[in-house]
């Protein structure tokens, strides 16, 4: 199983060049049963990453381009009247898939956003009469542009909290950029990719992540990190207990990816920026990139107990 996972990650690395840390974070997010928010400027391969993840992990996937006129029904689905059976029939929307790519999620109206985010949290959809469970695994990869643009609705803090991680891809370095230019469009390679895993494997991996050992010493460190965000002078609101649970699961997933059976402070530090970055806000500033820096400051300030 672990070898398959390493193989999947190696395969992903052939598609997304020069971003091993972000790739691993995305995989850790999937294995921790979280949802992923990718924040970056257009054209750095957000969609490619989502597509590649789906392909390599053998998941069914759907893509929804969020626009300002997107309605909740466009995501969830709609009840239609069937003349033949004289009954209403629920036609499932694109949400009913294993990996949903919600592209440019901040372009949609808050109403459409919250329809998606509620489904993410509950992992089910309720219509007038029936509740439909979403498939398992269910993994949302949302992308958003970081810059404030006309016609966008920034996700409020409460919604951001539903994403386990936020990552930034960033521009490739010079060497990988040349490789990209030389080898052409990566996306064309995707359909030829053989799936390394399938949904069953993903579920098994998710279960295995939960079983990764967490020692008391690690919990002490984790708790100290969280407590520090709550008492830090520059941070408006510290990490919530939900964020703390997410941090632990993400660290477990990271340990699993690293081939370990117990979580180390190294694992916590590896995921801390991605888990805490979008949840922390500087008291006096509005730049969303500040969260990442705050998270780094916190991780550098909290001693790892010997």
């Amino acid at each position: 199983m672990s070898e398959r996972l390493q193989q999947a990650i190696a395969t992903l690395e052939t598609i997304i060049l020069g971003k091993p840390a972000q790739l691993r974070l995305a995989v850790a997010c999937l294995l921790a049963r979280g949802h992923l928010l990718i924040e970056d400027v257009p054209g750095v391969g957000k969609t490619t990453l989502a597509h590649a993840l789906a392909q390599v992990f053998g998941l069914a996937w759907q893509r929804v381009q969020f626009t300002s006129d997107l309605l909740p029904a466009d995501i969830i689905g709609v009840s239609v009247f069937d003349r033949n059976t004289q009954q209403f029939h629920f036609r499932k929307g694109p949400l009913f898939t294993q990996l949903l790519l919600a592209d440019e999620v901040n372009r949609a109206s808050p109403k459409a956003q919250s329809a998606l985010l509620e489904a993410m949290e509950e992992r089910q959809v309720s219509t007038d009469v029936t509740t439909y469970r979403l498939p398992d695994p269910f993994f949302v990869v949302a992308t958003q542009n970081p810059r404030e643009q006309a016609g966008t609705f920034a996700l409020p803090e409460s919604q951001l909290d539903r994403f386990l991680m936020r990552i930034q891809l960033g521009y490739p370095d010079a060497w990988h950029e040349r490789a990209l230019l030389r080898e052409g469009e990566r996306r064309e390679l995707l359909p030829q990719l053989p799936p390394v895993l399938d949904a069953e494997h993903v579920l098994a991996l998710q279960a295995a992540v939960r079983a990764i050992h967490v020692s008391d010493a690690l919990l002490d460190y984790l708790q100290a990190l969280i407590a520090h965000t709550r008492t830090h002078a520059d941070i408006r609101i510290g990490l919530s207990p939900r964020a703390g649970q997410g941090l632990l699961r993400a660290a477990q997933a990271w340990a699993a990816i690293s081939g370990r059976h117990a979580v180390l402070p190294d694992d916590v530090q590896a995921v801390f920026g991605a888990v805490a970055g979008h949840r922390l806000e500087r008291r006096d500033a509005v730049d969303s990139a500040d969260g990442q820096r705050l998270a780094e400051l916190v991780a550098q300030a909290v001693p790892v107990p010997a």
Partner: protein
Amino acid sequence: MSPAWPARLRPLAWTFAAFAGAVLLHVDRLPAWISLFALGAIALRLRLALRGARMPNVWLRAAVALLLTVGVFAGFRTLNGLAAGTALLVAMGSLKLLETRARRDDYVMLGVAFFLLLAACLDRQGLTRVPLYLAQLTVNCAALAVIAAPGPLAGVMAPLRLAGRALLFALPLAVLLFLFFPRLPGAFWALPNASGAVTGLSEEMSPGQIDALTDSDTPAFRVEFDGAIPPPNERYWRGPVLSEFDGTTWRRERGHYYPEPAVGFDGPTYTYRVTLEPHGHNWWFALESVLAAPNRRVLLTMDRRLVAMEPVNEVVAYTASSRPRTHTGEPLSVLGRRYALALPAGQNPRTLALAARMRAAAPDAAAYARAALELFAREGFEYTLTPPKLAANAVDDFLFNTRRGFCGHYASAYATLMRAGGVPARVVTGYLGGEWNPIGRYFLVKQSDAHAWVEIWLDGQGWTRIDPTGVVAPERLQRGLYDLMPGAASFATRMARETAWVGDLVQAWDAINTAWRQRVIEFGQASQFALLERLGFESPAWEQLGLLLGASLVGWLAWMGWRSRRWLRGARPDALARAWLTLGGKYARAGLARRPAEAPLAYAGRIAAARPDLAGGALALAREYVGLRYGPASDPREHELAARRFIRRVRGLRVSASPPGGSR
């Protein structure tokens, strides 16, 4: 406090609060202009902080400082002492506020606030002030916490709660120091007090000159009896004895001390403890006749008064014993007799004539004294607190015309009659009676209990008290002044006397205050030694106090340690952690010290990257360590063994300061 405030403003606001509170403690004692200056300085500094403007420059500040110093000196005529010093400190503190830039300046301001609090404690120690002082102390400590670490303490309540908690933890320490820290003899709080305006008896008495006795509920002293309590007609508290008379005014004798005959004492012995309020003179009060001086700070004079070395400017407490009657076999000395008979020549002729007539009719001195008393009872004399003024020859005017007066008038007239009749006499002033406080079980003697009476020399008995006022107004002896003349009392006094529960409340408050003062404020060396005796030390001394203090400090530290044992245990690394720290120390020799926030594998990775020759050992040890520390709990015995192996390997680890081969 809105989050929009600049970070600098929060400690500054706390500094303001602490300083302003400290100034408020003194505001009724400070000249108004200094308080206004402090207020102005705070407002100005707040404005500067909000608008980010520049502070006044150094020359302006220096000029203002000079002006303030001159102002304080002009107001107080000194820069020394509590009042002037406090005023100067407030003024300079306000000015310092205008140059508070960094954290260091905030600490200075807090120092000023603490010092002002201390000054307030030195100034006034009343029970009502205690909550104020505690509140100020809490605010100061909270400000200290905010200035030291503004981050973790958000809002207003969190710093106050922290300060309150810290003070509670310090409370046992404070109590221990209070009980056992060796004191100098005398009251700790004693400080030269500038405000000498104290009420009480004076050294002279001119019955004709005063036309109204001020009614005053101000306490003169409090008395607790140890054992028997004397009946009301023996509760005469002797103060100044006035022997010189110029026809109008009775004065204390100055420089004329005649040896008096030795006397023996009769009657029950009363032992009592007097807590004397400051009155600015050096006499103490005692029941007649006091047997001995209570302590070495006071003398027992020939006329059986207690005269202290120092004026009573702070509360003093003493224990004395008295017996009510005396007898003697010796006559009064010739000089003493002449002195106690002296009358100014040519004054009060009608009184002299009357005295001669009455003395001739009486068989002996005692009969004459009785006859004179009967005169007051017979001739329609009236007791009043608002007597008419007396003309020249005041005694004549009183005895034959006005016939209205209070104790001073009667004592003066009676003593004059006695002297004119050849009976040695003197006027004694002091207090009569006192109000029983059932809660505190003491008598409260107020200024309104002030009284004057006469002592005459009777052969065989010695000096004998005669109270002519008692003949005119016998109720005065039994009850207080106000029972006699309700109209003389102020509204508040009447209220307390006529409404039972108000009276009870007043008494309860007085009892609590008295207890506070006797048990807390006046807890000095004597009380410490008494405590030591109760704890079983036979001869209390400094050494025992030191011993107890040391022992109790150790106890307090142990208690604090026990309270924070979890924290201490958390801070004390176990063997595994110690080994990991040792490992960091060893690699530190190669310039690769572990950073506190560095995760173990990241640290090993850094070592490996920096020193490939050390990589293998570092990575293996780090893996071993994380396995032991964070890994799944295996068999405890195995874990223990593995940990020991790891510790041994760390001990055996050798880290060279530079890579082998000296490749440079």
